[in-house]
């Protein structure tokens, strides 16, 4: 008994919240909405495909939070990247459109990163400012107009296409999770990100180039937000300044519930994936239940609050 208690204390509960929450929400909707189409293969596939952009943003945010920083600007990066890509695709071939989207994302990440890493400005304030800055740029870029994406190979590649029957959005999700997990768990960069978020001074005196790590995570987050922008543009066959606007809370919640520490030193890509799927499932179920938009927001807010509270409870012990 004593050993069992000791074991339960050692196993960090917060790591499993996301899996338990995912199962509970799934079971709840499966029972209450079983006859309303929740359990159909089509609907479940849809959930996964719709969460592709948020999952990819979440992967970037895991790196940032694990390094002890935060990025609030990724939603705006999504919009600017998608618009840049769409505008370029209007005149140039696929490659340049992709390059524009990813390049803009990485460049904004670099901009954030330099301010955070080398000028030592708090990332919360830097990205709060750049969130507004780039949201404004996204609006002014095309005078609030949405830009259609007519490049068919782009739409196939980042939206409705598939490879051997596997939808491309699913492939992007799996690819990003696999690469993200590998880099985060299995490489020096991942280890340095964790060390930097955990104890920057210890990392510094151990020879880790802390500023470079901070710059890197902001660039990774920016680049992945750019990719998320491409996926939105591909799926909707258009780019608009509102893309990514409402994803901030969803993505942060997915990452925190997934088991990544808000104050650095701890993170998991797989947890973020499951967290993101959980948020997507929640959205989907609440819509199927016929809740009004305002009711959906309220229920979602309450559930996120509960999940985050449980996730952070034993951290603050």
């Amino acid at each position: 008994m004593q050993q069992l208690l000791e074991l339960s204390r050692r196993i960090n509960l917060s790591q499993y919240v996301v899996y338990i929450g995912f199962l509970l929400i799934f079971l709840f909707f499966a029972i209450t909405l079983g006859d309303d189409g929740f359990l159909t293969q089509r609907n479940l596939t849809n959930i996964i495909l719709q969460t592709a952009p948020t999952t990819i943003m979440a992967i970037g945010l895991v790196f940032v939070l694990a390094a002890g920083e935060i990025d609030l600007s990724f939603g705006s990066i999504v919009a600017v990247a998608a618009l840049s890509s769409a505008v370029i695709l209007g005149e140039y071939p696929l490659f340049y459109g992709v390059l524009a989207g990813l390049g803009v994302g990485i460049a904004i990440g670099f901009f954030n990163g330099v301010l955070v890493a080398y000028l030592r400005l708090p990332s919360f304030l830097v990205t709060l400012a750049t969130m507004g800055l780039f949201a404004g740029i996204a609006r002014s870029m095309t005078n609030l107009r949405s830009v259609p994406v007519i490049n068919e190979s782009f739409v196939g590649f980042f939206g409705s296409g598939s490879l051997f029957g596997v939808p491309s959005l699913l492939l992007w999700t799996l690819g990003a999770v696999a690469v993200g997990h590998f880099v985060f768990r299995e490489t020096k960069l991942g280890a340095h990100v964790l060390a930097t978020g955990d104890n920057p001074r210890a990392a510094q005196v151990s020879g880790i180039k802390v500023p470079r790590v901070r710059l890197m995570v902001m660039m990774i987050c920016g680049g992945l937000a750019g990719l998320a922008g491409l996926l939105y543009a591909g799926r909707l066959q258009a780019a608009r300044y509102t893309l990514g606007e409402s994803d901030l809370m969803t993505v942060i919640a997915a990452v925190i519930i997934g088991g990544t520490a808000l104050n650095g030193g701890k993170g998991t890509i797989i947890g973020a994936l499951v967290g993101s799927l959980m948020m997507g499932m929640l959205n989907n179920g609440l819509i199927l239940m016929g809740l009004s938009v305002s009711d959906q927001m309220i229920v979602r807010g309450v559930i996120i609050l509960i999940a985050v509270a449980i996730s952070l409870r034993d951290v603050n012990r």
Partner: protein
Amino acid sequence: MLDKPTSTEVLRLQNIHKSFGGVVAIEDFSLELKAGEIVALVGDNGAGKSTLIKIISGVYTPTSGSISFDGKEASFRDATEAREAGIEVVYQDLALADEQSVYMNMFLGREKTKGPLGMLDRKAMRDETAQLVKELDVRIPSANATIRNLSGGQRQGVAIARATHWATKLVLLDEPTAALGVAETAKVEEIVASLKERNLAVLIISHSLDQVFRLSDRICVLRRGQQIGVRETANTDKNEIVSMITGV
């Protein structure tokens, strides 16, 4: 063996002087350290002990004076260069990453990798860590344990083990037992004493004279940045050291 390895000089500080702006922190300090020797650095708060450690470990550059390390003139531009030369520091406030495992801390910033993709070689790091903590008799649950779940003594044990692992010549200890209880202090002292057998030179800052007399071969006293003197531990007593520290 005529030339015992224990007699080789590792570090020589000559007429070190350090001032910050107009404030003199260290005035004309000279000391040499031999392999397998433990020298204690004592003095009141603000005497300049930590400044001296930072000068040796490359964090500060001396205003004047020369440092020779391992027989060669040394001018470390930063802590990384000093570390590469074989100098390791154990800080008072433990430079450990709390949420990471013991083995990842042991290899912090110097992770072992394998394969073309540069994958972390966790197994090799774990095994080496397990071996080292066993050799030094640091009693921790396992190399996988998270630092946060260890006691203060175990943490300091890990910090010293890490320094020992990487130091090829010299270990600097800045009050390694300041935050520890009696039993834990004894354990850490045991580990420090065992560094002699590894033929490392050790410079230790301590506020506990009992500890200094238990561990050191020589004692160097600083007062307000001035070097008051160096004594062989065997040929001095607490009264003399105390009066050197306080100046009365």
